[in-house]
């Protein structure tokens, strides 16, 4: 008798109808959106803040480079000594005072600049000031050596090295970023999925043990059927939850940004400000070229391969880990006992993410990346991250074969532990004990 559909249905419905599951499903995107909105709102307030910076330039070389902007007003002080200036700025509660000390030689100007403020100033402000001063001093030094301003401007060059493979396939830096993004998202998604829903499977096995229903069930169905039903049912609930998150998140993001008029793309972090400055320096032609690059980059991705590989490695990796989670659930009596068995599962998973983040970015086809994309417990995550960079099909096939082989072994192993473990009460499982169960 095949009860698998019946078990899957029950597991799915129980998960989906569970109150905390429903609350999590609908609340999580709300919380996420609220957080994003809050962060972007706060950073907007932050960047909208008006600052007044007083400048006391005793040399007179730099005074005209400070031009006030919307957010920052430069107040030019003259004819004051440093102590008076400090006093005035402090009293007016201005953001700070930039003091350029009087020196005779142009070479020494840079060594006598100081910023005074009540609190330690923001990194962005200081580096902005530094860039302004550096540029002016460099120009002045060159001018002193007889180079005209026009010549300096003309000497500015920006280089973008075009890339092409021996087969004639064009690519660019943007390419790599896009590839990394795709691989990273795929790998991270799998990682999150395993952690969240693997745990859910484990808890549901433990629940059956603690509620003592297991022996009733097991007299009607084979343990392996129950285990597979649990894994598949919980996974389907997981897919449902993920889908709702994606849809709900998208809808709410649109609504929230429409209502509050917050342009999510323009969340101003210091890094982005610098990027924005750099971008605005370039002409609109270059921006257009960049957009074209992004499109070609996405077109360059092995989309078909990516989708197929994603499906297979995702399912394979997820099933492999979730059967191990099910085995852990069967081996213990309550959740607190799971710790000792969790580590060996989490280690390869975390290792895979680290290898993915640090090694694959550096060298997607290097020895370390390649080896880890074959080891079954790390291969799903690492291989998914490598594939956008183009992995030979035989490597993908071999890795998948190894994964499936390990998966079958893991299911056999988990089913053994499961079969014995679910009927063991009160006995604290040790690794030695588990090994004995394999022979029952």
């Amino acid at each position: 008798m095949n009860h698998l559909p019946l078990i899957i249905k029950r597991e799915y419905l129980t998960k989906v109808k569970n109150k905390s599951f429903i609350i999590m499903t609908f609340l999580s995107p709300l919380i996420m959106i609220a957080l994003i909105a809050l962060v972007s709102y706060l950073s907007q307030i932050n960047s909208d803040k008006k600052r007044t910076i007083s400048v006391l330039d005793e040399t007179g070389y730099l005074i005209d480079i400070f031009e006030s902007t919307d957010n920052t007003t430069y107040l030019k002080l003259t004819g004051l000594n440093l102590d008076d200036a400090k006093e005035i700025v402090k009293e007016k509660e201005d953001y700070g005072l930039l003091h350029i000390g009087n020196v005779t030689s142009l070479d020494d100007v840079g060594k006598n600049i100081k910023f005074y403020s009540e609190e330690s100033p923001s990194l962005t402000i200081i580096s902005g000031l530094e860039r302004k001063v550096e540029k002016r001093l460099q120009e002045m030094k060159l001018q002193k050596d007889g180079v005209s301003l026009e010549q300096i401007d003309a000497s500015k060059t920006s280089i973008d090295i075009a890339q092409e493979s021996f087969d004639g396939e064009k690519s660019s830096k943007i390419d790599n970023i896009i590839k990394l993004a795709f691989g990273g998202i795929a790998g991270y998604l799998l990682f999150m999925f395993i952690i969240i829903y693997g745990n859910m499977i484990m808890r549901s096995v433990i629940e059956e043990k603690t509620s003592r229903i297991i022996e009733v069930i097991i007299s009607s169905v084979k343990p392996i059927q129950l285990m597979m039903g649990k894994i598949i049912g919980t996974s389907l609930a997981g897919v449902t939850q993920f889908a709702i998150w994606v849809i709900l998140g998208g809808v709410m993001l649109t609504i929230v940004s429409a209502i509050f008029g917050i342009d999510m793309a323009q969340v101003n972090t210091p890094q982005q400000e610098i990027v924005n400055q750099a971008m605005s320096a370039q002409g609109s032609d270059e921006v257009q070229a960049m957009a074209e690059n992004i499109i070609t980059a996405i077109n360059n991705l092995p989309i078909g391969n990516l989708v197929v590989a994603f499906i297979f490695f995702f399912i394979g990796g997820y099933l492999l880990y979730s059967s191990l989670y099910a085995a852990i659930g069967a081996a213990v009596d309550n959740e607190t006992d799971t710790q000792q068995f969790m580590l060996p599962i989490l280690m390869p998973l975390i290792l895979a993410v680290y290898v993915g983040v640090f090694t694959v970015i550096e060298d997607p086809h290097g020895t370390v990346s390649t080896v880890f994309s074959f080891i079954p417990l790390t291969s799903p995550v690492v291989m998914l991250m490598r594939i956008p960079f183009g992995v030979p099909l035989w490597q993908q096939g071999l890795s998948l074969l190894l994964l499936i082989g390990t998966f079958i072994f893991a299911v056999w192993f988990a089913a053994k532990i499961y079969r014995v473990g679910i009927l063991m009460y009160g006995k604290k499982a040790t690794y030695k004990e588990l090994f004995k169960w394999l022979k029952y």
Partner: protein
Amino acid sequence: MNNLLVADSVSKNFGKFKALNQVSIGVPMGSIFGLLGPNGAGKTTLIRIINQITMPDEGHVYLDGQSLKPEHIKDIGYLPEERGLYKSMKVGEQALYLAQLKGMSKSEAKNRLKYWFEKLEIGDWWNKKIQELSKGQAQKIQFIVTVLHRPKLLIFDEPFSGFDPINANLIKDEILKLRDEGATVIFSTHRMESVEELCDHIALLHKSNKILDGKLNDIKRNFKTNTFEIGLQSSKSESVLSEIKNSFEVLPATFKNLNDDIKLNIKINESTSPNDLLSFLTSKAEVHHFVEVIPTANDIFIQTVQNN
């Protein structure tokens, strides 16, 4: 009589531990079969083998003459000692699910459930969650789920634990009714008075071996010691007592009676008939109490286990 279930030299090892050693039993069709034994004797292991939860290392089990196979699951109803239900699932949903796992169709299960819910007067529980019920109430659901698919063979492991005396009686009557309707029952318990009340046959397991089995009455006959419990009244009780002691093997007896002067257990040998003893006694004193001592299941259990 035909045996519905036969276990033929079944052995099972867990690592180095031998849980069952060449155990053979035959459960007659339509009987209530008591599977007895101290804790850890191997009863649960044997029951799990019959339910195909674990496989025997050696030996075979036959149901209705056929070697045990997966299709037999629907012919067996099992109420395990370690039992429970999904706490957050509704009573009706849960009962339907478990019935479907036993191979019933949904509509059939629904009809049968309605019948049982009415019979045990619990119709209004359908939409309650198990965690809202008391332990005894949950046990009732568990019982219904066990018998719902009308199995040929019912296995009850401590079925009365958790029930108050009224409900225990109710369940006992239902078990007897099911037996009368043709079901065969294997009944495992430590409560000897229910064995006495219910079982036709018993098998006693001890330290993984079967040490005793057969019809309960036959076993009792084998265990009886030709001992009679008597109560006498006489004005010269001391001389009567010494006369009895000279002629028979005598043990002290304790039973509640109005005002007998002499209370004794008297053991007679094979050649003496109870009538001989009675006429001897009537000639000496007034006989108020004369009962043959029949060993209880409890006596047999303790005696057999201790001798092994």
